[in-house]
């Protein structure tokens, strides 16, 4: 089966640029380990109070890590697009290059 592939490397690079901006916007810039101001009994001594204190510390750090992870993935996608655009350009130039 054949399929027609149409590419515009300028637009691919433009999309890569937008994604790079997105990656920068997503990066929370926080440290992998942040100090949570909540201690074990900050919200009281009940079981649910201790559960919330522990879970809050964990979840906010996980949210931070998630944003950082997405930023990295989007940044990688941007890099892949740039590489693909270069590869398409190279392929095209090798095809249309005059024989020596």
């Amino acid at each position, binding site marked *: 089966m054949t399929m027609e592939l149409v590419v515009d490397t300028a*637009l691919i690079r433009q999309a890569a640029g937008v994604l790079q901006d997105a990656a920068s916007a997503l990066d929370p810039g*926080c440290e992998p380990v942040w100090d949570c101001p909540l201690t074990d009994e900050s919200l009281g001594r009940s079981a649910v109070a201790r559960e919330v204190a522990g879970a809050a510390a964990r979840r906010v750090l996980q949210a931070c890590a998630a944003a950082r992870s997405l930023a990295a993935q989007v940044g990688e996608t941007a890099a892949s697009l740039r590489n693909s655009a270069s590869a398409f350009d190279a392929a095209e130039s090798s095809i249309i290059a005059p024989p020596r």
Partner: protein
Amino acid sequence: MGLPNPMEVADEILQVEVDALQEWFTVAARIRVLLWQGAERIADAIPVLAAGWSRPEPHAAIGRQREAGLAGRDIISRQVDAADEAVATLRQSRVLADSELSAAESAALGLGWIPPEDLLGWAIGHQALGPVAGIVGTLQQRLNDLLARNTDALNVLAMTLRSDPGDPIEQLVAPRPTTAVGSMIPVDPDPRTGAAPVGATGIDADNLSRLTADLQSTDIAVLAMALGVQQGLQEAAEQGGVAQLLVYESANSTSQGRAAISVGDVTTADNVAVFAPGVSSAPVTIAQGIAGAAGIRDESQRQAPGDRTAVVAWYGYDIPLSAIGGVPQTPLATTKNLVAALDDGAARDGGALMVDDLARFRQWAPDTARFIGMGFSMGSTTVSAAAAQGAEFDDLILLGSPGASTQVETAGDYPGMSADHVHALSYDNDPITTAETDLLAGGANIVPRFTMSDEPFGPDPANRDFGAQVIDTTSNNPDLSISVNTGAVGGFLTDALASKLAGDVGDLMIHHQESNYLSGRSLEAVAAVVNGRYSEVPIKPGR
């Protein structure tokens, strides 16, 4: 006056650190905004890429990244909103509690009471007990109502915090076959070791290399242990998808060796439970402990599907009575191993080893991973000793414990841990958990029972004075009634004693079993602690 002290409830309401809660969730609120803004910019790229690349896969992949970002944002959003609600409720309760205290004070002043005189003493001296009891009773009721409101708000927040905002984004990374142990997908085990395939970067590559070498050994002790560990790895891979050999030290003629196998991937786990077995277990029989570890993991993940749990079967201490079913040893080494059951010496030494092992496990696990130390019987004494020596578990669970080791007197003695995170589960009909030794657990048929006058294994963690959270569940097995009739003339006393001994041995065999502590409601409670869901753990007063 027979009334509870309202100031205890007032303190619980007034001392809540509302500002800390609010401050912490401003971080989450900021990340919520970042994810929204990032998702919007990703959306901008989609039509551009669609115009520049005719195949749909590239922009579809970007679309999935955007959706994952938005899904993560939605989870954070619910958590931030619930936190805001909780902050508002807690703050309002503080104001109202203060107001109620002022109103009660004004009412007492109106009766003629002059502070700082003790209110109760004044009421007795001035025949004003009735009115004062009314004031205090009303105050207590209103404060209880405010505390209940706080608890409701925290319950709502706790429920929203059960979702990991990172899950949608982590799921973006398609699972792919990897040569490293720690793969998130089931893989065919290595035919030589039974473990998932090993790569140069696998956290247990060195241990598996040593295991592979030991499988070729001509030393019967070395080979026997290696075969046992190989079987354990196979069991763990079958039951948990991922098996990791986190500790491996060969056996020899004077040692049963050391081994620890993780059921589940430590490198991605949200919760890492480290389980130490009781007497008579040995690394050569580690496969028998894998089912228990897998059961804890399964139940933990059933209760918290979004959280990943790894359970490590830690056979890392010189387990008393392990020589009985373990690899062949010299007579002297065997004797020392049997005698080790008489006190907590092996547990204390093992605790130090566990501290060192944990330091390595922590390096492999995510920064946010919780570590839970668990042990059954002498294993509980060992994890308790490890905690006493600075293991810094997030939670400790002592199952069927003969004692918490002589290194602690109360649950408040563990460095870096609060007593509220120390859990004890001891069945009342388990004789090992009373003031008697653990000997019969593994050697009922070889060693006579005796009672120690002191506490060779340390304090009973289920005792009220110890101060742990005592889990309220009962044995999964029915009691056994044994009556012995010797037929001897005048043998009533002999028969009674024999029946009592037989009954105790029966209780031991029926109730003091690792599987009995890791099934039914007990397993549910253990898993709730593993997940940090303390509000779901049934608690009762200690003995």
